[in-house]
């Protein structure tokens, strides 16, 4: 953990040249000599304490003055992975070395008693560390084993395994600590806690020990190299001194010593093993080296685990998608099926909300899928907001593109205030020609993670306690991430795109099914047509015959029949006429299926006048008053068909009035006029109606009266009729895109309402 100090500008932290601070920590001695003459060029000011010689007497001298022949041989064998055991100034030391231009940089630390025993200790330390790893199952257990192992080896108070997220903010995934320090497990830390150049050093140099935060750094002699005039680059040096900012912050936290080991994955910084100790504590080079070996093994293991996890996640997503596709295939319609499996849809991309804008791609008759109404799952903006977003996306995101952002509000201000549900958006376009999308939403990230510290509740440091302090950097960072969601991963995007594929496939299958049905329908239409042709002629012929012969018979032999015989014969004729009328209606109804409407501007008033004209005899005969309170409007319709509708409704209204006074009212409700509840079924601009005070219809029959040949009364009652009139009338208005319905109750009369559609498409 490298939190920066609160009082400093963060960008200043990013610029501080921490590799050129020009000093070393006092727990070791740095010495740089030139090949091939072995002349010492730079040495740290604390040389005398370890080597017995002051820097001045070493500079310009051969390094053999401090290293014995055997040690020199080992050093000159070249940079080793780990520390080299040497005798320097007559004392056993561990030496770390690296080369820098023509210089060999040697860092010497006195071997402590516990390390001095044997080189095997390092091996046993590695063994001690690595063994638990082999037993751990799963990433979390693995990291926990690493944290425990490191703490066991170096004896620090707190060892955390810290992982960087894609935006470089960090999360504590595992922790091993003594009982008297605070736990940070599960907390998230802002990215600014570890500045860019610090992350670069962590990548280059995986080990970092600050043995004593209060130790004064030791200068190098001379401070700049004579050849170049620049200070020695210490980025490769383990002893490199520490930024005062960082030290001060560690002191503020009550930390006495800090040690970190980088976790790299595929060469990139994945995380850190970060260790704190309350008092100063040195970790020998050998143990540090053991930790590095552990980190490397851990990194490998993590890579494997992560690849496994990715594979598992891919498998999980594939399974989710499979489930979705299967379930959706089973459902009566896609929207209905999706409705009960919205959770799967969310899980697919790890979203908290999703919206599908399918337009009329799917079954347009299915509730909820008509027109532009989006299907919403989980936490999403409202329907209208989603529709507007889709319209914007269609213009912005381009055809067929996948669109993703963690900051929707910055790109699309209308949703800037909806970070509670839609800070992040992942969108796949389903149709290049229309604004049809699958959308996934995520809320602002601060809604979903626990941050290390609450900027609104500054905590006071208490003596003897280690705790995180409120930090300006945190508040600043919080400002920076406000409105942003967790980023969409490659896997999320892949899952979304693959869902698009599946959905497209499903839609295609749906379309194929529709086309199969329509072929079947065309076939059955053709069959029906030939059937109705047969009915129209071959069945009518014998019916005509029955009527003719009963007529002849009655004409010729009525006198020789008794009244009952005559009645029977008349009944035969009536039945034949009735059957023929039904055939005619059936024929008529079936013809409506292939009817092409002839749209035109029509004066509805004139149309109704014509109908009243043709029905006048009947109206007079029934002494039925026609009420027309106001002139009917001009509308677009197929005049011939709508005349038939009026005629049907008027005939009906006249028919079902057994007693006087009989009347029929014809009227309409215009745009903006108040409508009775019964007329609310449609929002068409005009609702026409035909009202009568007749016998009325019980509510349970309000739909069935529109079925073909459905009758509520005996065939002979109320003037007969085949029961096809209303079915035909409804089919005619529906061909116009309108609807026909009734409001009625027994004894209360009936009002038949009808609307026309929006005109020719």
């Amino acid at each position, binding site marked *: 953990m490298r939190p920066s100090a609160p009082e400093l500008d963060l960008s200043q932290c990013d610029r501080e040249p921490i590799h050129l601070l020009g000093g070393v920590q006092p727990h070791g001695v740095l010495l740089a000599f030139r090949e091939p003459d072995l002349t010492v060029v730079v040495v740290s000011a604390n040389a005398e304490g370890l080597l017995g010689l002051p820097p001045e007497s070493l500079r310009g001298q051969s390094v053999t003055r401090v290293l014995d022949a055997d040690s020199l041989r080992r050093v000159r064998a070249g940079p080793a992975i780990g520390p080299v055991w040497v005798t320097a100034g007559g004392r056993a030391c561990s030496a770390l070395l690296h080369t820098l231009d023509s210089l060999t940089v040697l860092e010497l630390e006195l071997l402590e008693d516990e390390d001095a025993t044997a080189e095997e200790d390092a091996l046993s330390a590695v063994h001690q560390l690595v063994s638990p790893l082999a037993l751990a199952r799963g990433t979390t257990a693995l990291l926990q084993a690493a944290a425990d192992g490191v703490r066991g080896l170096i004896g620090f108070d707190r060892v955390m395994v810290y992982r960087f997220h894609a935006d470089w903010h960090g999360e504590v995934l595992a922790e091993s600590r003594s009982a008297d320090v605070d736990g940070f497990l599960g907390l998230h830390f802002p990215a600014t806690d570890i500045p860019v150049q610090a992350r670069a050093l962590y990548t280059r140099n995986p080990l970092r020990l600050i043995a004593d935060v209060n130790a004064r750094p030791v200068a190098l002699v001379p401070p700049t190299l004579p050849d170049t005039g620049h200070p020695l680059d210490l980025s490769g040096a383990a002893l490199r001194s520490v930024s005062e900012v960082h030290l001060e912050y560690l002191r503020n936290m009550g930390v006495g010593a800090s040690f970190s080991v980088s976790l790299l994955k595929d060469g990139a910084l994945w995380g850190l093993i970060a260790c704190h100790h309350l008092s100063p504590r040195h970790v020998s080079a050998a143990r540090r080296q053991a930790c590095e070996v552990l980190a490397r093994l851990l990194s490998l293991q993590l890579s494997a685990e992560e690849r496994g996890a990715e594979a598992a996640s891919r498998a999980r997503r594939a399974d989710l998608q499979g489930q979705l596709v299967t379930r959706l295939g089973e459902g009566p319609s896609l929207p209905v099926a999706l409705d009960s499996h919205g959770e799967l849809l969310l899980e697919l991309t790890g979203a908290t909300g999703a919206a599908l804008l399918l337009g009329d791609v799917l079954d347009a008759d299915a509730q909820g899928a008509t027109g532009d109404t989006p299907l919403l799952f989980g936490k999403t903006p409202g329907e209208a907001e989603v529709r507007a977003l889709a319209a914007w996306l269609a213009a912005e995101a381009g055809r067929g593109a996948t669109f993703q952002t963690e900051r929707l509000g910055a790109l699309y201000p209308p949703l800037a205030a909806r970070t509670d549900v839609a800070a992040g958006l992942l969108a796949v376009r389903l149709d290049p020609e229309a604004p049809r999308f699958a959308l996934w939403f995520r809320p602002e990230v601060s809604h979903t993670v626990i941050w290390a510290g609450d900027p609104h509740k500054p905590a006071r440091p208490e003596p003897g306690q280690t705790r995180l302090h409120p930090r300006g950097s945190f508040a600043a960072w919080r400002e920076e991430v406000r409105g942003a969601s967790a980023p969409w991963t490659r896997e999320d995007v892949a899952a979304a795109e693959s869902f698009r594929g599946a959905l497209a496939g499903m839609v295609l299958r749906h379309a194929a099914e529709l086309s199969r049905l329509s072929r079947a329908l065309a076939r059955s239409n053709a069959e029906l047509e030939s059937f109705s042709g047969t009915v129209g002629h071959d069945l009518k*012929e014998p019916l005509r015959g029955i009527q003719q012969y009963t007529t*002849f018979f009655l004409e010729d032999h009525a006198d020789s029949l008794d009244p009952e015989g005559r009645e029977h014969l008349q009944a035969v004729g009536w039945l034949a006429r009735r059957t023929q009328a039904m055939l005619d209606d059936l024929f008529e109804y079936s013809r409506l299926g292939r009817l092409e409407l002839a749209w035109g501007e029509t004066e509805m008033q004139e149309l109704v006048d014509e109908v009243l004209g043709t029905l006048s005899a009947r109206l007079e005969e029934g002494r039925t008053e026609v009420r027309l309170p106001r002139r009917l409007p001009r509308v677009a319709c197929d005049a011939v068909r709508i005349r038939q509708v009026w005629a049907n409704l008027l005939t009906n209204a006249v028919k079902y009035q057994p007693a006087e006074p009989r009347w029929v009212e014809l009227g309409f409700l215009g745009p903006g006029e108040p409508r009775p509840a019964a007329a609310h079924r449609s929002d068409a601009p005009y609702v026409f109606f035909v009202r009568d005070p007749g016998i009325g219809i019980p509510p349970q029959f309000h739909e069935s009266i529109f079925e073909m040949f459905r009758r509520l009364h005996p065939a002979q009652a109320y003037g007969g009729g085949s029961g096809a009139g209303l079915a035909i009338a409804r089919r005619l208005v529906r061909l116009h895109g309108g609807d026909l319905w009734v409001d009625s109750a027994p004894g209360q009369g009936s009002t038949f309402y009808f609307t026309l559609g929006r005109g020719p498409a």
Partner: protein
Amino acid sequence: MTGTRPLLLVEDSDADAVALERIARRLPSPLPLVRVRDGESALDYLYQRGTYASAPRPALVLLDLHMPGMGGREVLSRLKADPRLRCLPIIIFSSSKEPLDVEGAYADGANSYLFKPEPGEQLEVAARALQAFWLHAARLPGAEDSTA
């Protein structure tokens, strides 16, 4: 005199034929009707073939459209394609109100198209009108006979 030449009724439905014959008999001046049951017989009659070798030429043909075997449309086309018979007036007499049937019949050269009325008295009205127009008002081809 026109009355000596019969109407040829081409009709497969006995009921319709019987009804028409019945009406024809009862008209004030009876309509002479000859009936055949199908298209083939109609052509045999008009070409005076087989049993119809000595059949008289009719004044008019009343032709049903929907018949088993050779249909009315085919009979019509054949007659109108033959220069010797083209002038013979052909009146379609059908229960079909299909616009396709009506238009098709005229396209093939029918001289008029009558819907078979519903059974009962309307048939008599139709028969009277038929007689009044075609046999009294209209001048038919083969006029030298009519002035005799």
